[in-house]
């Protein structure tokens, strides 16, 4: 009996120790940038586990660990469109041991007036993954199978075509831009995140779901859903049969960029180390093959290029938002 009790106590103690050890390690010494990294790097993913942001970050992190020689701990800090996690990164010490992994949505928060940070408020290690598979998806029972027939139908029935989005998400801006460029008027309805939107389409409650082709390739393969086109400059290698929006006369191309950001006061040489590792990962054959399965493109953008790219996206998004 005594032994058993001891065992229980030891387990408890162990749990507490493990839980506390991270904290202890962080406060022990301030990272000396010359031997960065010398302890695990915490990467904040400001959305829940299981989505594409989380997955892409985890896949990249797996390869990054090998290049950096230290482990990467991913923590999901969800809430209010990512801003809870983003603010958490800004509140941490600028020593390079807390990074943010996210995508375009961060910029949207500011445009919608929901957050006060912009692309200028961070330093970037770079971009590793591009998602150019943004698409408008319809059900197999849909009356329109391409953009021409959709536009014709929507013009005849203004405000009747139900398009699913989450207000404030990237897809909302895509719909606004589509309306502006084609002169149609949709009924934009909120249907939640990626998987909830698919539920709504399968249940016949909405007509169009803007999403990434990589997330729904199974449904496309089974024929239950049809992509009306990809919103990109060129057709995708993984889906050569799907025409681009541009080919169909709608001048839109959207890159969803997955970047790695740091607190703005982080030393440049630390970011340089991370950036070099990211570049190597982006050129790694195994990595490229792994993400291609999900219709993603591997492309490296340096620190400066990333900032430029994000500013470019912000300007474009702002224009769309202001024109509505």
């Amino acid at each position: 009996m005594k032994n058993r009790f001891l065992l229980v106590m030891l387990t408890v103690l162990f749990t507490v120790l493990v839980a506390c050890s991270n904290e202890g390690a962080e406060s022990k010494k301030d990272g000396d940038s010359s031997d960065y990294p010398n302890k695990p790097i915490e990467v904040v993913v400001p959305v829940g586990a299981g989505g594409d942001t989380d997955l892409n970050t985890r896949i990249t992190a797996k390869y990054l660990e090998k290049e950096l020689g230290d482990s990467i701990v991913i923590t999901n800090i969800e809430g209010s469109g990512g801003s809870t996690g983003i603010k958490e990164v800004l509140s941490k010490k600028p020593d390079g041991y807390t990074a943010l992994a996210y995508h375009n949505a961060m910029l949207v928060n500011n445009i919608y007036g929901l957050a006060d940070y912009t692309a200028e408020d961070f330093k970037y290690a770079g971009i590793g993954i591009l998602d150019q598979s943004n698409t408008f998806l319809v059900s197999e029972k849909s009356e329109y199978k391409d953009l021409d027939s959709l536009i014709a139908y929507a013009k005849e029935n203004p405000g009747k075509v139900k398009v699913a989005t989450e207000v404030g998400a990237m897809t909302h801006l895509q719909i606004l831009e589509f309306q502006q460029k084609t002169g149609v008027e949709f009924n934009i309805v909120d249907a939640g995140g990626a998987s909830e939107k698919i539920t709504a389409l399968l249940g016949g409650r909405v007509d169009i779901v803007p999403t990434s082709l990589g997330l729904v390739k199974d449904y496309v393969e089974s024929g239950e859903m049809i992509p009306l086109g990809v919103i990109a400059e060129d057709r995708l290698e993984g889906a050569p049969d799907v025409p681009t929006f541009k080919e169909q006369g709608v001048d839109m191309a959207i890159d969803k960029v997955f970047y790695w950001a740091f607190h703005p006061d982080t030393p440049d040489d630390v970011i340089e180390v991370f950036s070099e590792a990211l570049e190597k990962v982006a050129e790694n054959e195994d990595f490229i093959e792994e993400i291609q399965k999900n219709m993603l493109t591997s492309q490296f953008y340096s620190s400066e290029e990333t900032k430029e790219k994000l500013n470019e996206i912000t300007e474009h998004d702002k224009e769309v938002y202001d024109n509505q």
Partner: protein
Amino acid sequence: MFELLLDGINSVFTFKIILLIVAGVFLGLVFGSIPGLTATMAIAICLPITYGMDSVAGMSLLMGLYIGGVSGGLIPAILLKLPGTPSSIATTFDGYPMAQKGEAGKAFTYAITASFFGGLISIIALMLIAPPLGRVALQFGPFEFFAIVVFSLTLISSLSGDSIIKGILAAALGIVFGMVGSAPIDAFPRFTFGFDSLDAGFDLLPVLIGLFAVSEILITAEQKVKNNKKKKMNKIQYRVKLKEFLSQKWNFLRSTLMGLGIGILPGIGGGTANIIAYATAKNVSKTPEEFGKGHPGGVVASESSNNAAIGGALVPLISLGIPGDTVTAMLLGGLVLHGLQPGPMLIQNHGDVVYGIFAALIIANVLMALFLFLGMRVFVKLLSIPQQILLPIIFILCVVGAFGVNNRIFDVGSLIFFGIIGYFMIKGKVPLTPLVLGFILGPILETNLRRGLMLSEGSFVPFLTEPIAAVFLLLTVFSIGLKLFMNYRKKVSG
């Protein structure tokens, strides 16, 4: 189908995978039994480990964790009146009074048996009819969800204890707390008073653990720890007669089906299933006044429904690729990382893995029951640990768990805040469960009302004319009417 299952069982019957399931179930039970630590956390911690394994092995570990994590909560629920996980809140209502009467052993036997068979039935349903069941779930849109939630809220009357007014007050308070943070749909921050930390609102786990565990610890601390007069442990009865079990068969069946159904609907989840199944069992029972005083039916309802919700939650994940809660969202991530896209093609393209998962679930379910039966004589000894030692440890674990949700110290603050609220509510004899229901269901209600109005372009008519929604709203009116009528009759005859 049967051959496929045999193949699946074959593929998991290797030493390594069985060991992984054993480890998963054990670790899951530990996480489940500690208030503050949950199945979600166990899976989050182990998910990265599974990346290095092949897909069947990785998923087997996760299934073990899932089943163990949901089941472990019954241990502290019965012994200490602390729900180990949100799934075992209702287990405390009758499990703890049973333990107080010296029937802890019997309560365990009821709970473990109900968990085992509830889990088993839901796994079988998952294997046999996942695709059609998944399609049924698709029929539930904003109108239907709105109606279901309205109906569920009427259950507050059965969970209110002595005073319905206090119950409604608690539920309203829960709805208000649920509104704190970014509003659904437009993300406009409400009730944040300028604090950035409140932007994301209160997380469910600190709210639950604060209300049910921290408050209970405060109450016990106040009652000046009565030097645990060693209760006569020797005479604990574990055997439950078959006849006693069979008297619960309809209750068991109903609760299992409810758990399965609630599990299938994305977004409601196991944390609510046990409360709703409990309230229904009480409503239907011929002796509702016995509930809350140590009625085995309460334990059976809660524990069969929460385990049945596991199979339910996996239905839309496996058949449609749609995760219904945080656990299944992580399982989705785990599958995708192994190159498997859950969805309509999963069973066709990767039947071996799917049936491997089914086999792992069955084995994990058996192991869960085995571990709990073997362990229950040990768990009971927990009671002999002096409370002044046990409770502070539990409190620390609650804090660790609250911090672990989002790695934010803010959540620890809200844990303590809700602990204090819970303490005053217990003092004022205000029931806690309606607050939890309001907190969970309020945001679902609002989101679906607003989404429904967007779909219908502002018209309320579809809420009444969509068939499924109409049925639930009619049930709501009927159940309120019945309650009023019965109260009236009681008054007249009394």
